[in-house]
């Protein structure tokens, strides 16, 4: 049996949910209104670190129109996204850990009444020392922000060595040592988080929420509320932007669920913009140090990377984020020996977590800027330098990541050709410059965040005599176009139009589990599951049609809403008739498909972070204009090439690339989640510097440069129709490419982001004074690192295990396991 030439896949077309979006009919969580619905507001801590000495809600309870006031005592069971960091309470129990930490909740007849009642809650705090940043955390193990973690206020330390790095550096012609700082920033989705919870008519809990991960929210609710998961329904409403910021189970979700159950009435919460800044889970601020050894010809001999992460007040995805700061250095360029040490500290600030690129943009920035410096020192063109060291396809890296196809060299060729690199690099007049950087990203995390052997994505298809097809999948539409991928894959295989397929997604009652919209996993994992389900349906139909037409099933073609004989295209039936024949032959037609990533080659502890079925690659060239008198940077043009494997819907792929460029420019030039101390006469508290969209600067339509996007399409065998990810990878090269371009323009190195005018002016001033023309951190602190796990790389006969690791028995639980496993 064959399918015709591709009619859906690879064709630029309107996304299946396009009409809903442009007519305002997409129903976001806050658009839902239910009969008898009440409204919830949270009281949030005004101090960064304190014990709650007294909490009096009696005046709020007595306020007219108030139905319920909840405090930490009502919800004593902690939860958290990772099994190893179950450190959050829906409402603080005895202690607050950052300004914005929720302390109590009011449920009232309307929002205004709830706001009034929140103001009537009396809290008395006993202040504790504020831990303001990682250096503070290292210097002050007490008071501990949490009673768990590796030590004091250190949440997690990791230390891994693949080959003898000191020996590798000793064998280099030169060793480069550089320190970089990457400031934190936040997702800033335009949709504020919202949830509506209700007891359904059967008495079970249902919650509609702007979540990227309904499956993980489902698990967290079951735990925090002590309900059987089977009696909880989580519906992920389409997200008005996610970018990683809606991937954790949140306080407000648990709170409205509890309130709806207690009151037997629907309860809604919609966070204010200020509260969205407190939810955060955004980019970790990271201080990092690279020591890289190179031969004169540019060959890398080894690399030693150290990272120090400011984790904020809770664990969130932080253990995974820590590993990710060191996971992908080896995926772009061949690194024969690699050592990585990472340390995440707790601080009294909103918790950091996964933002687009999760943990990898920070060290990608450092690595790509350092490569630019090395290229200059060795007098090799930066593009040529990268082409010399690019990793080989179909290989295992030093840290046991299995690489499939690599389109990076082609990406470099394409952006250098398109941008006129050879004519511009080091040749533009002062004040204008051009910079190059590369990157790589996962097409889905190879392991789930909790131990299990279950599929990562499942798809069910229902076909019936109407000729209609419904595709069910737990994947979550966050704007990236996952519904379109689902429908597109099914329509392609069955030879019908996307409009003939209905997508039902992100609903734990109706749809098979998909782990969620994170780690760029949905296209690859859901897509493969959808293809499997559709092929099984196609086989059923072909059998029935073959019998009817007396044609071997293998000769049938599915195209143009028909099933016909390849040798006599006139002989065939409509798709609808084909479904009827199948229904008559073997009963109700339904099929399933699922996807489980291949087993990782890494067998060492911590090896669960980094593996992926395949990796995407990107190269970008950024042109800048820097005004040396003001330090002001304008980006007029960006050229970017992305190794997508295959573009399923090129319109959407281009949108992801350009959206990544946009977000990368925001991080490079202006966005920062920064903090300040209130004046002592107020409280001296450490507060968010500007929790508002007006002052948290993000690029507008006037700041956006022209972007020239090239898609490199060499189908990867691991991807659906050959596709790789595109949602995150293209963001990664932008920040270092900007830094490298600024250097080309005015000759100073800005070794941290955001690259703001004041930093450029300081570096220019330093250069004028005969000092190094550089702005950035000067040193990396001395940290007592644990003994590294030593894993010999594949070329030294290693088998993926650490030679000095004490093996623990492997957990055997499937699905429900809550073992404190370090996998994510």
């Amino acid at each position, binding site marked *: 049996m064959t399918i015709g030439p591709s009619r859906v896949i690879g064709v630029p*077309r*309107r*996304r299946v949910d*396009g*009409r*809903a*979006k*442009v*007519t*305002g*009919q*997409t*129903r*976001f969580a*806050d*658009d839902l*209104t239910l009969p008898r619905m009440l409204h919830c507001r949270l009281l949030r801590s005004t101090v960064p670190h304190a014990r709650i000495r007294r909490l009096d809600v009696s005046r709020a309870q007595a306020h*007219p*129109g108030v139905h319920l006031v909840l405090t930490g005592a009502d919800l004593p069971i902690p939860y958290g996204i990772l099994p190893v960091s179950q450190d959050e309470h829906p409402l603080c129990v005895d202690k607050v850990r950052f300004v914005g930490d929720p302390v109590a909740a009011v449920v009232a007849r309307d929002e205004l*009444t709830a706001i009034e009642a929140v103001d009537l809650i009396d809290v008395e705090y006993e202040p504790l020392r504020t831990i303001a940043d990682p250096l503070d955390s290292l210097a002050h193990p007490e008071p501990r922000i949490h009673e768990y973690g590796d030590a004091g206020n250190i949440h997690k330390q990791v230390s891994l060595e693949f080959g003898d790095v000191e020996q590798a550096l000793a064998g280099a012609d030169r060793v480069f040592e550089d320190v970089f700082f990457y400031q934190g920033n936040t*997702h*800033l*989705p*335009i*949709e*504020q988080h919202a949830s509506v919870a209700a007891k359904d008519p059967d008495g079970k809990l249902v919650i509609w929420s702007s979540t990227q991960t309904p499956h993980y929210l489902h698990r967290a609710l079951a735990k925090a509320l002590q309900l059987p998961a089977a009696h909880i329904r989580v519906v992920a409403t*389409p*997200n*008005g*932007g*996610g*970018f990683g910021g809606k991937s954790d189970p949140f306080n407000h979700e648990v709170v409205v669920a509890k309130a709806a159950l207690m009151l037997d009435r629907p309860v809604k919460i919609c966070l*204010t*913009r200020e509260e969205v800044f407190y939810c955060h889970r955004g980019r970790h601020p990271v201080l990092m140090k690279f020591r890289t050894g190179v031969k004169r010809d540019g060959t890398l001999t080894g690399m030693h990377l150290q990272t120090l992460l400011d984790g904020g007040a809770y664990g969130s995805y932080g253990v995974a984020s820590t590993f990710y700061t060191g996971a992908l250095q080896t995926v772009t360029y061949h690194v024969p020996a690699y050592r990585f040490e990472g340390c995440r500290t707790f601080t009294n600030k909103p918790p950091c977590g996964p933002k687009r690129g999760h943990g990898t943009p920070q060290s990608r920035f450092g690595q790509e800027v350092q490569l630019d410096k090395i290229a200059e020192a060795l007098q090799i063109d930066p593009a040529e330098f990268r082409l010399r060291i690019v990793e080989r396809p179909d290989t295992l890296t030093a840290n046991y990541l299995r690489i499939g196809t690599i389109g990076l060299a082609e990406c470099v060729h394409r952006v250098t050709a398109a941008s006129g690199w050879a004519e511009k690099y080091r040749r533009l007049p002062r004040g204008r410059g051009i910079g190059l950087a590369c990157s790589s990203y996962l097409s889905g995390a190879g392991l789930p965040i909790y131990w299990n052997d279950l599929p990562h994505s499942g798809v069910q298809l229902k076909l019936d005599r109407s000729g209609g097809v419904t595709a069910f999948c737990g994947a979550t539409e*966050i*704007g990236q*176009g996952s519904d379109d991928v689902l429908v597109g894959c099914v329509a392609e295989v069955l030879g019908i*139009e*996307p*409009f*003939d397929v209905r997508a039902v997604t992100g609903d734990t009652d109706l749809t098979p589990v998909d782990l969620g919209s994170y780690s760029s996993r949905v296209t690859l994992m859901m897509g493969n599951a959808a293809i499997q389900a559709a092929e099984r349906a196609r086989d059923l139909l072909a059998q029935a049609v073959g019998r009817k037409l007396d044609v071997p099933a293998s000769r049938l073609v599915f195209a143009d809403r028909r099933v016909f004989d390849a040798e006599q295209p006139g002989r065939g039936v409509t798709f609808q008739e084909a479904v009827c024949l199948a229904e008559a032959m073997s009963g109700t037609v339904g099929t399933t498909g699922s996807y489980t990533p291949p087993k990782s080659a890494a067998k060492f502890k911590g090896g669960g972070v980094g593996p992926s079925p395949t990796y995407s690659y990107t190269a970008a060239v950024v042109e800048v204009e820097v005004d040396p008198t003001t330090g002001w940077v304008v980006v007029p043009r960006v050229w970017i090439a992305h190794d997508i494997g295959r573009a399923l819907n090129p*319109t959407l792929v*281009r*949108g992801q690339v*350009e*959206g*990544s*460029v*946009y*977000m990368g420019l925001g991080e490079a030039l202006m966005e920062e989640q920064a903090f300040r101390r209130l004046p002592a006469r107020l409280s001296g508290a450490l507060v968010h510097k500007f929790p*508002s*969209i*007006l002052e948290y600067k*993000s690029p*507008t*339509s*006037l700041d*956006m440069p*022209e*972007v020239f996007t090239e898609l490199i399409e060499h189908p990867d065998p691991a991807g659906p129709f050959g596709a790789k990810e595109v949602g995150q990878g293209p963001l990664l090269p932008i920040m270092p490419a900007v830094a490298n371009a600024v250097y080309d323009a005015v000759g100073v190195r800005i070794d941290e982001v955001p690259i703001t005018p004041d930093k450029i002016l300081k570096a220019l001033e330093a250069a004028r004074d005969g000092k190094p023309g550089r702005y950035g951190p000067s040193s990396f602190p001395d940290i007592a690192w644990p003994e590294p796990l030593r894993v010999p790389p594949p070329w030294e006969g290693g088998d993926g295990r650490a030679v000095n690791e004490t093996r623990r028995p492997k957990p055997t639980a499937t699905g429900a396991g809550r073992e404190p496993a370090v996998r994510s």
Partner: protein
Amino acid sequence: MNDRRSGGRARAHLTLHVNGEPIDVAFDAYKTLLEVLREDLGLPGTKHGCELGECGACAVLVDGEPVLSCLVLGVECEGRPIMTVEGLTTDGRLDPLQDAFADLGGAQCGYCTPGILMTARALLDRVPHPTREQIREALSGNLCRCTGYQQMFEAVEAAIGRVSAGDAAPGRPEAKS
């Protein structure tokens, strides 16, 4: 406009002209136009991202001009024509801007989209053939975190000169199927 008392709050009772229809509506007088549209008139197509006039998501047309509905009180809009995203579609046909945004990737998550569409509609009504620079300028008060704006600019340009919906859409028609 009448003031009444309900739960201790002043109530407004007046007629608003929304998407060509006069609607009698009573609401708490403190409410913004955004709140009245979403909560009292059953028109949730208009979105909010800050409720402080910072993001542009709530833009609607009042007297044909884009305004941030989170900064206008409902009671200020009596008797003035108000147009929301729900009013862009006529007789079941999409506005050319809507078609172009849907076909060309102008909407990703779709959350800022209603505000952008209304702002772009006002631009095309005022300047039928805007340049790229005029489009960039007009949309600069509407933040979008998904698209990087470029496909929006292209969508606005594709809609230029196409007065009524039902003309050939730039991509594949939505219900070719």
